[in-house]
């Protein structure tokens, strides 16, 4: 039970401080992974993929997933509700003072600072995913050879997807499916 309460508190905190949409929850998820070990860094990367391929935002998906692994089905529901709760209250309040909120210069000012901050933390999360996906730190530490540091197959795939996405503009789920097949065929 204390774990479940802790889980709800952590996801409520995430819901309160992640501003600017789905990926903004990532720094909080990495913090949770480091401090409580409810899920691994690789789990977070996998859940980003799951979130891009299923309806619903990454925050809800991760709270459901972490809730399920630590507290079964009740845990899944409680963690997701905890994530949704702070913003629910905030929106109820704002709905009453809509016009005032829109025209408040301090809100604009805060966003002038929050946008680059949120982007910086998304970039850091990207670096975290790259650490799992593109390099093999263990092999590098063991052999000390730079060629062992990089997962070359993964990097080639990454470049191809990057170019492909820019040119073709397909839905991300298509590229995720292609990557899954490439991972199986080329034994990533």
């Amino acid at each position, binding site marked *: 039970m204390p774990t479940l309460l802790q889980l709800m508190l952590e996801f409520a905190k995430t*819901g309160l*401080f*992640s*501003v*600017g949409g*789905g990926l903004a929850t990532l*720094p909080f998820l990495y*913090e949770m992974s480091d401090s409580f070990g409810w899920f691994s860094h690789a789990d977070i*990367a*996998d859940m*980003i*993929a*799951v979130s*891009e391929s*299923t*309806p*619903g*935002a990454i*925050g*809800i998906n991760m709270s459901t997933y972490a809730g*399920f*692994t630590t507290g079964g089905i009740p845990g*899944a*529901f409680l963690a997701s509700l905890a*994530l*949704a709760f702070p913003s*629910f209250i*905030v*929106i109820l309040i*704002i*709905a009453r003072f809509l016009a005032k909120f829109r025209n408040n*210069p301090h809100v*604009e*000012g805060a*966003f*002038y*600072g*929050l*946008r*680059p*901050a949120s*982007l*910086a*933390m998304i970039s850091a999360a990207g670096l*975290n*995913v*790259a650490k799992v996906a593109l390099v093999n730190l263990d092999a590098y530490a063991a052999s000390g050879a730079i060629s062992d540091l990089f997962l070359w197959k*993964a990097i080639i*795939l*990454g470049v191809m997807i*990057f170019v492909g*996405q820019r040119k073709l503009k397909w839905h*991300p789920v298509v*590229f*995720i499916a*292609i*990557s*899954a097949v490439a*991972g*199986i065929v080329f034994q990533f």
Partner: protein
Amino acid sequence: MNELLELYWTFLKIGCVTFGGGYAMLPILERELVDKRNWTTMDDLRDYFSIGQCTPGIIALNVSTFIGEKRRGVTGAMAATLGFLTGPIIIILIIAAFLTNFASLPLVQHAFAGIRVCVCVLIIQAVLRLWKKSVVDPFTLALYLIIFVLNAFSGVLPVKVPAAVLVVCAGVAGITASLIRNRRTGSGQTGKEKEEK
């Protein structure tokens, strides 16, 4: 009671078809809420989105809460929000049950190793897309770099600053910088000008 059920059901449906979240759901909301049900107008919807973006939490959820509250007050907001949450929770429960049972299979592991590469690229694309709107001048660039270093290298730095503290500090820094600039130029338009750039 009937309208509450309708709110719940409508947002349950919307929650099941919005891939990718955020602005991806705007056309779906427009069809379901403006065209079919006349619950709101396109202009209001855009307002809810811009507010949903600059308040904490998930944008899609915030928009659901907004429309629910507009229709039926607090209970309406609850019905819409819970409706939106229902689909994703059930889908992830199924996937989580699958993952805990099959994650150890080599086939699944190879597939996810490939998928992680794609996720990495998707995040890079998102950063590139958001860059122009977020990093607009030396101040925002400095803020970006400081927060990136503090957050990305928290493991090797002597102090670990929690993400929540970084968010609050960035908000305060943004307000302060805007105030200083306004005082210097004597106009109250800094925020608007930033938007247009």
